[in-house]
């Protein structure tokens, strides 16, 4: 466990503070006043049944969805409804459950999507730099993709997931949101992802991990937050919870 450095203390400004978040889609009330606090370097396991609203809550943090009500603060600064660009600028990176990759764009292009380097006067994309740095980023994460010019649409599910993870990690995030990052990964790659989470949290990056592989959560999480029917149901300490206890909480008991 890498220790929630100041996540639990009331006086410090938390890295992430979400207050009273609500969201409805038509008649469906997905979130009905959810709170979430994450400290610097803390790893929070966000759990709940299918459809509990985990992805929706995290998309709000990443700026991709706007809450109906509630506030989102990062390092004390209000970020509610400012959009994905502002979230990125504040160091929030997310691996989306659907990966959010462009199939017709190559590996390097997907890693740099939205922040492609280009020449100031000619406006020409710096293809050479993108491919070089993309290869370096992948190598650093031990992701075996031989050519960053391959189109992402032609790659395997595991490779695509690895690319989505690499994209989120490559730009020095302060908050890393991982929504089912290991669903398509082989055992070795899952282990590497868990190690990655330990490494970045060691460096002070706050991590929010959503996964249905609950045993993984026990390996890396400092705290479990359980959502049920659109509200915070329970908050659990992995040290005094077991798998059965967590599953029971997820069922709303």
């Amino acid at each position, binding site marked *: 466990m890498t220790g929630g450095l100041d996540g639990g203390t009331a006086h410090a400004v938390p890295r992430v503070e979400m207050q009273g978040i609500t969201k409805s889609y038509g008649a469906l009330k997905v979130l009905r006043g959810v709170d979430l606090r994450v400290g610097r370097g803390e790893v929070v396991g966000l759990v709940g049944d299918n459809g509990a609203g985990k992805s929706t809550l995290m998309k709000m943090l*990443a*700026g*991709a969805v706007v809450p109906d009500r509630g506030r989102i603060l990062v390092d004390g600064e209000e970020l509610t409804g400012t*959009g*994905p*660009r502002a*979230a*990125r600028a504040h160091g929030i990176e*997310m691996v*989306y459950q659907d990966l*959010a*990759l*462009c*199939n*017709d*764009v*190559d590996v390097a*292009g997907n890693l740099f*999507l*939205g*922040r*492609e380097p*280009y020449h100031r006067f000619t*406006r*020409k*994309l710096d*293809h050479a730099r993108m491919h070089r740095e993309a*290869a370096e980023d*992948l*190598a650093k994460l*031990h992701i*075996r*993709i*031989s*050519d*960053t*010019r*391959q*189109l*992402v*649409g*032609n*790659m*395997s599910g595991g490779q*695509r997931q690895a690319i989505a993870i690499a994209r989120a990690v490559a730009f020095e995030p302060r908050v890393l949101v991982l929504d089912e990052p290991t669903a398509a990964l082989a055992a070795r790659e899952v282990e590497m992802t868990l190690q990655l989470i330990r490494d970045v949290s060691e460096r002070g990056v706050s991590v929010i991990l959503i996964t249905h592989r609950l045993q993984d959560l026990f390996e890396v999480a400092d705290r479990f937050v359980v959502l049920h029917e659109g509200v915070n149901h329970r908050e659990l300490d992995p040290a005094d919870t077991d798998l059965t206890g967590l599953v029971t909480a997820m069922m709303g008991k």
Partner: protein
Amino acid sequence: MSATTTSVPDREARRDNRRDFVAKNFGVISISVVFVVLFAYFSLASDAFLTTTNLVNVLRQVAPTVIVAVGMTFVITTGQIDLSVGSIVGLSAAALGLFAESGNPVVALLGTLAIALAIGLASGMITAFGKVQSFIVTLAALTAVRGVALLITDGYSTPITSDFLLPLGQGSLAGIYTPTWLAVIAVVTGWYVFNHTRFGRYVTAVGSNDESLRRAGVDIRRIQVAVLGLTGVLAGLAGVITAARLGSGSSNSGTAFELEVITAVVLGGTSLMGGRGSILGSAIGALTLGVINNGLVLSKVDVYWVPITQGLILIVAIFLNSKLFGRIVGTRA
């Protein structure tokens, strides 16, 4: 990646690369083959085809199609379509005539292009902010814009006599007509922007997965507005060229022009589903259509065969585009 690569992934990578090369260039390769075959056929079938005069004329005739096809490649790659380009050609030709009749030719030129740009931007804004499909918006514009062109001219043509404007259609440099040079500039610039700038990258990304691009912090509505503004202004330029070539601005210019442009783009391998486009392919597609039209005329078949042939080519092109092309470049995801 060399540190973690062994020879087996290397071989796989090379195979993947070859597959990606074919996937990326399949459209251009196949339309080039079609072009060469047709070119050879008409060279043999008609004595008049393979002459400098004829080829220079073909290059002038196809110039408006090439120019607008460059813009249409951007639009179709984002997954949209612009059906209004033919009507914008008509309005621009008419407007150029009227403006030139009553004032400064430079102002006439800029005013005409500004109107065309404004129409394109308006369609783009209704599409992007009103969340109406561009198919519907530009279909409405197709009717309305043509109506405006007829209204302001009462259906008559206006002669153009300005020494500033006429060379845009009739001038030549090094034996090649001005419209052809403008088309070359459009293709080179379009190719550069499409393949080497952020804007071009985002055009592909919008058509591939617009939500991914939005989550990456890019305002995808601006991309949608920009591409329709681009076809608008390029259709305006095509209208100017057409009017200058004929020496008169006619509101009937550009009838069914949108079909020709879309056929050229689809022939060039740009996917109607968005995400994949080729400026070079569109240019060769437009040239192919020009060669077919010219070849048919020279072969002395009844002129009514020209639109019939064009319609049939469009059907075949779309069929190949969605079936064959889709299978060869089919993605796993």
